[in-house]
């Protein structure tokens, strides 16, 4: 069997005296759609930040398709094909929606800057092709009407979807989405669910931190439950729903 798409072994991180992540190990199979769930403050986002090396872990390591990520910069990790989004939609202000999506294609721009500056045919052709694939993604997410609007003028839900397709524009092998459904209304959540299914069926591995249970149970094929900085359970959505430790993590222990 080949190496998992993403694998964490014994990850730990403390802030001051708080153990945000404590000896966490998990693995994400290639081509799966894995959801990372857990109550607020469970350490999900910290886990994402450790995987993408925004934080240096105190212990443990992360392997991407078998390759350890230690020593790589966040940009270096992205160039391997591991791309993430952020909890608060971090679209780039001062640019249009289309330009935001195009910025996602950064790793696939082949024409060097001087060719772009000379308006050489190869650079212009590449630009047209990138615009075409950005338009296709905007269409897929239902954002085409916002194409030329300033990205910051978009409604919050649209901004979050925009950030997701910006990450997809980087053609990742594994995409990490941090609470993509937060702030989305029902219609937008449905849009997101179909987008996620389309992404997975195109062969991209998806890891999503999410609170919206109906979304998670509807699209994920594997669920990892985190509480108090540690993995509590993992399995298929059906297995997780019946797990008493998961219920405990969410609703608390019954008074004995």
């Amino acid at each position, binding site marked *: 069997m080949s190496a998992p798409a993403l694998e964490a072994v014994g990850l730990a991180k403390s802030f001051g005296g708080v153990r945000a992540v404590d000896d966490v190990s998990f693995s994400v199979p290639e081509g799966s759609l894995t959801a990372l769930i857990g109550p607020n403050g469970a350490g999900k986002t910290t886990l994402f930040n450790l995987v993408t090396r*925004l934080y240096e872990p105190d212990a443990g390591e992360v392997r991407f398709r078998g390759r350890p990520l230690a020593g790589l910069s966040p940009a270096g990790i992205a160039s391997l094909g591991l791309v993430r989004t952020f909890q608060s939609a*971090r679209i780039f202000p001062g640019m249009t929606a289309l330009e935001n999506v195009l*910025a996602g294609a950064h790793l696939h721009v082949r024409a060097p800057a001087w060719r772009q*500056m000379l308006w050489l045919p190869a650079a212009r052709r590449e630009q047209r092709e990138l615009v075409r694939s950005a338009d296709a993604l905007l269409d897929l997410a239902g954002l085409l009407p916002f194409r030329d609007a300033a990205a910051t003028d978009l409604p919050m839900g649209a901004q979050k979807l925009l950030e997701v397709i910006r990450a997809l524009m980087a053609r990742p092998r594994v995409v990490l989405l941090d609470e993509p459904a937060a702030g989305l209304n029902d219609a937008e959540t449905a849009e997101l669910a179909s987008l996620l299914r389309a992404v997975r069926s195109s062969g991209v591995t998806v890891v999503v931190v999410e609170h919206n249970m109906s979304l998670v149970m509807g699209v994920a094929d594997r669920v990892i439950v985190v509480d108090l900085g540690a993995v509590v359970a993992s399995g298929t959505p059906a297995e997780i729903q019946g797990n008493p430790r998961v219920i405990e993590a969410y609703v608390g222990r019954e008074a004995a």
Partner: protein
Amino acid sequence: MEQAIQTVIGGLLQGSVFGVVALGFSLVFRVTGAINLSQGAFCIVGALAMYSFEVSLGWPAWIAAAAAVAVTAAAGAAIGAATFVPALSRLPVSSMLILTAGLLTTLEGLSLVVWGSQPYALPPFSGEAPVTVLGVRLPTQGFWIVGAAAAIIAGVWFLLMRTALGRGLRACAENPTAARLMGIDVPRMTLFSFTLAALIAGVGGIVVAPILSFQFDTGRLFTISGFSAVAIGGLGSLAGSVAGGELLGVAEQLAAGYVSSLFANGIALALLILTLLVRPSGLFTARRTRREDVRDEHRIYHPVVRLRGRRAVVFGLGAVAVLALLPWIVPAGLMSSIVITGILFIGVLGLDVLMGYCGQVSLGQAGFMAVGGYTAAILATNYGWPPLAGIAAGIALSLACAVALSLVTMRLRGHYLALATLAFGLLVDSLTVGMTETTGGPSGLVGVPSFAVGPLDFGSPVAMYYLVAALIVVLVLALLGGIRSGFGRALQAVRTDQTAAAALGIDVPRYKMAAFAISAALASLSGSLYAFYFHFLSPEMVGTARSLEMIAMLVVGGEGTLVGSLFGVALLTLLPTIFQPLALYKTLAEGLLLVLAVRYLPGGIFGALAQRFLNPPARAAGSAP
């Protein structure tokens, strides 16, 4: 030995004042998170006011000093209430930096109007005769300086650490939103800290004035020294500010005494770079892990102005036609100023790539103009190089300087590039003034030949005009090509959110460096053309005042638009030419325009025009295909 002790003591005295200015930086930074570049100007306002009261009006020294401090604090309170405080809640931190650069220019301009450009000196408070302690002669003024500095440090420390007001100030620094929810009046706290910083700068300026000569623009030297001191000691650390100030003061005096006073400014730059390399958080503060997953700039004020397709081509061709016909339209007397406008625009264009697109503030753009200008002019004048080769050499040297500065600063977040470029500009200032044999010193380099390529001579204004206009068209087209493609998108991503940019695989330091290199190269080209056109180059034509002016031109014209700054350059170059008697008010007007533009005119003149006439912001409903 005795001389060494004297030098060190002189350094400690000067360092005390740097420390006081640095303390003001730290105070405002702690409360607001913003760097206030106008800090040093309040020293000089205090000193100049003291001169007026004590020498011109003949008031007793202590009444004059009290009045001068009151004037400085009142000026600080008024300026803070009118600009700094209301802007703080609306502008991103980098715009606050530009706003305070505007305040610095405004205060310098105001001092120029009130006190003129001549240097001033104050008599020592307690007579000229020095006191001898253990065989070392100490100037009596030294006791005043050290005493005042110690009183200020103790007072600020007590205020912050031991009073309820101080707790409120510290709460604002930690978390303004939470502080507001807890009932702390954040704007009032901000105004208080700004005013207090102005007041202590005023006191510092007044006590140090008797040991130096000062004029309307000496304030920026205090700003750079105080800013360097605080960066060396650690932003926000009170002890660090003072220690950084003393270190810098002693190092500068030793360099001036034993090497050459030319390099006193260089020492500030060297110490600063060393600190940034070894310990970027400063020598006296603990390293703190910053939260990487929050955004750098919460607010961006640029309107998105885009001209597309046929419309862009029509406007572009129209602009080229106007450029081609201009010499037939405008009176011949104005042609020279228009050429200068074009030459300066090339330098501002570079600044736009760096500031407007990449979000990095440079306060030393004219320093690169000086490098390019002097290199090309000296090679062409003294060594007979062809002008083109001189320009190329200037650009190469500028690029080398830019790479050196950016290797140190590009990996750091915050305003280190602004600081390093300001120090660089001041170093270039003192080198061009001091290296008299090569540069001609303060009176300038004369006899620079016209720009010529082989037999083609561009001596006349019209010939130079067409050369510059053609260059501008080529440069704007090239930059436009880069900006509309992957290169420009990467720069703009870095401008607002470096973490998100890196998460998409954008090599952030590399793009910052590229933007800085482009900006330095264009400034260098602009400086060379400037020298060839005037047949002359003097330090003040390409000094720090020019750097600040170029920022004003860019922001007033419109950042991040490539062509917008042409409005700003034209406004600030042509108006003083047309209305000669207003020349005295030029600096003041530049400062005020910059402050007003940062505060009220997002996108500058170009942004306002474009939104009004060309491109009403594309709304979702209106732009559906």
